[in-house]
């Protein structure tokens, strides 16, 4: 399966600032997603990262708050903008590999704490 890395692995940020999280895959993938896992809770899909075009956001998530880029088939970024303590979560990217449809592999996650 694809090897997925995320940077940073964790960060502590001040209220009002922004953080960009990177997701890098070692092979070309068809789909990339970003999820949020709030403390003690399940995963919620934020958006589908589309290569070369605007991401597709789920209900409750907007581009101004969570801008996403995907410049090529192996890399994506998620920015958490104007952070508040409620944004403290684990953010995970996931991918669907070419040739392995219907199966998602997850990155290790980025643990974000907002003070």
């Amino acid at each position, binding site marked *: 399966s694809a090897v*997925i890395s995320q940077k940073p692995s964790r960060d502590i940020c001040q209220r009002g600032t922004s953080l960009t999280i990177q997701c890098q895959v070692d092979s070309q993938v068809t*789909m990339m*997603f970003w999820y949020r896992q709030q403390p003690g*809770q*399940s*995963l*919620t*899909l934020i958006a*589908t990262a589309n290569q070369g075009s605007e991401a597709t956001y789920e209900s409750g998530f907007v581009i101004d708050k969570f801008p996403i880029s995907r410049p090529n088939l192996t890399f994506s970024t998620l920015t958490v903008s104007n952070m508040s303590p409620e944004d403290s979560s684990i953010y*995970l990217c*996931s991918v*669907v590999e070419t040739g392995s*449809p*219907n*199966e*998602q*592999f*997850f*990155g*290790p*996650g980025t*643990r974000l704490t907002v003070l």
Partner: protein
Amino acid sequence: AQSVTQLDSQVPVFEEAPVELRCNYSSSVSVYLFWYVQYPNQGLQLLLKYLSGSTLVKGINGFEAEFNKSQTSFHLRKPSVHISDTAEYFCAVSDRFKNTDKLIFGTGTRLQVFP
């Protein structure tokens, strides 16, 4: 909209005992079903999946699950658990016909294995 219900938030069990983690989904349409495991401070790892064919699927680490369409269930089982199975387990579903690979997750079940 689809939803996934994991009735048990926590399941305590002694080592070498059998365990069943329950999962029910709401949709009447055809679905793909997944179980993921999350060890402490790690990302998600795919345990097993049901896409089609045999309703009994076997996964890694001795886990298996049975798809029951009439009961809209996909319960996870292991005949004899080990201390190392202590983790959070998530059931997830995606819509077979929407072809988006988007996953809807349950709230998770924390399996605690005691010596």
